[in-house]
C-alpha cells in the first residue's frame, strides 16, 4: 500500500468521513469532527502509521489534508504514486 492510500485510510478513520467526502483539499472548516480532539487523534494516527511524531508547531500548521502530505514529504516520505 502506498503512502497516499495509507494516509487516506487513516484520515477516513480519524475523521469518520466517507470516501466520497475525501480530498487532499479538505480543510478544517469542512469537517465537523476536525476539532481539537480530532487533531489529537490525527497526530496519534500519523505517528502510528508513518512513525513521525508531529511537533506542536506542525500540528497547529495543518489546515488541510495536503498540509500533512507536505510535512511528511519533508521527512523523506514519498507520496508519488
Amino acid at each position, binding site marked *: 500500500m502506498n503512502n497516499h492510500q495509507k494516509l487516506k485510510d487513516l484520515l477516513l*478513520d480519524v475523521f469518520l468521513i466517507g470516501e466520497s467526502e475525501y480530498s487532499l483539499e479538505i480543510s478544517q472548516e469542512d469537517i465537523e469532527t476536525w476539532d481539537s*480532539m480530532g487533531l489529537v*487523534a490525527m497526530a496519534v494516527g500519523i505517528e502510528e502509521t508513518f512513525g513521525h511524531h508531529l511537533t506542536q508547531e506542525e500540528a497547529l500548521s495543518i489546515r488541510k489534508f495536503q498540509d500533512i502530505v507536505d510535512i511528511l514529504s519533508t521527512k523523506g516520505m514519498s507520496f508519488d504514486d
Partner: protein
Amino acid sequence: MTKPVEISFDDLRRLPKESTELWVQPSVRQRVEQVLRFRVSEPKKTTRETKCVIVIGGGTLLDAAKAWRADQSPATRLIAVPSIWGSGAEVSPIVVANDLGQKDIRMDDRFLPDQVVYWPELADDIPGDLARTACGDSWSHALEGFLSPLADDALRNEIAELISRMLNTPLGNSPRWFKLSAEACGAQACSSVGLVHGIAHTLEGPLRTSFPDQRWGHAKLCSSFLAPVMAFNGQGDGKSNRLLAQYGVDKKGVLKIARELHDASAYRTALPFLIDNWRTILRDQCTRTNVRLVRPSDLEFFERWIAE
C-alpha cells in the same frame, strides 16, 4: 489547577450549626447523623442564605451540590465529603449531569468545592462489589491519564509513582482509596482519558435503561472494559507498552489488576451494546484522546476478545 483545601473531620464538627446544612447520601445518613449535628437538608430546600453546605455522598450528589452552588448560590461555602471513591468529584472542576441517559459534562473552576474532608469510616458502608468497581474507576483514571497523548514527562512520572502505591493497595474497602482516587483524578485532569471512558460514557445510559436491576454505572463499565482496552492498546505500534516500561510501571502488576477487575458476565452483556453504539463511541471526545488510535474496524478486536 487549584484544589480544594483538605480540612480535618474535627474542623468539620466545629462548624457553626446555625448556618450549616448537610446534604447526605441515604446510604450513609445513619452514620452521619450519629456524629454530625447539623440540619439535614436537600438540594431543593437549601436557600441562598445558607452560609455553608456540607455534602456527603458519591459523585452524583457531590456534582449536584457543586452545580447548585456555582449556579444558584456562589457565596455559599461548599465542603465535599466523598462517601465513595472513583469519580474524584470532590477535587474536580467538572460536573456531570445524567439527563435521560445523556451525560452533560461541564467544566469550570467555579465547580470546585472550597474544602474536602476524608472520613475513612465511610469506607465501611460501601458494599463490597461497589468498592471494587470504584477501584476500577480509579484505575481507569490513573492508567488513561498516564497513557494519554496529552500527558507530559512530569505528569507521567507523577502518575507512575501513584500507580506503584495503587498496586500496593488491595482492591476493595480500604479507605486509602479515597485519597488515591483523588490523586488519580487530579492527575488525569491534567491530561485526558481514553477509550475506557469513551465506552463508559456511551454505554451507561442504554445499559441502565435495558437492565435497571443490574446496577450498571460508570464504575462498573470502567472495571469491565479496562482489561480488554489495555489489551487493545498493547497492540499496534506498542506505544503503551513502551511508555509503561520507560516510566518503570509494573506492567504485569497492572494487567493482573485489570483482569481482577474484569467481570466477564458484564462484558458479555455489554458487548451487543458496544456493537450497536460503536460509531458513537468513536466520536466520543474521550475515545479520540486514546493512546492508540481507535478505528471503525477495531470493533472486531472487542468482539473476539476473551479474558485470559
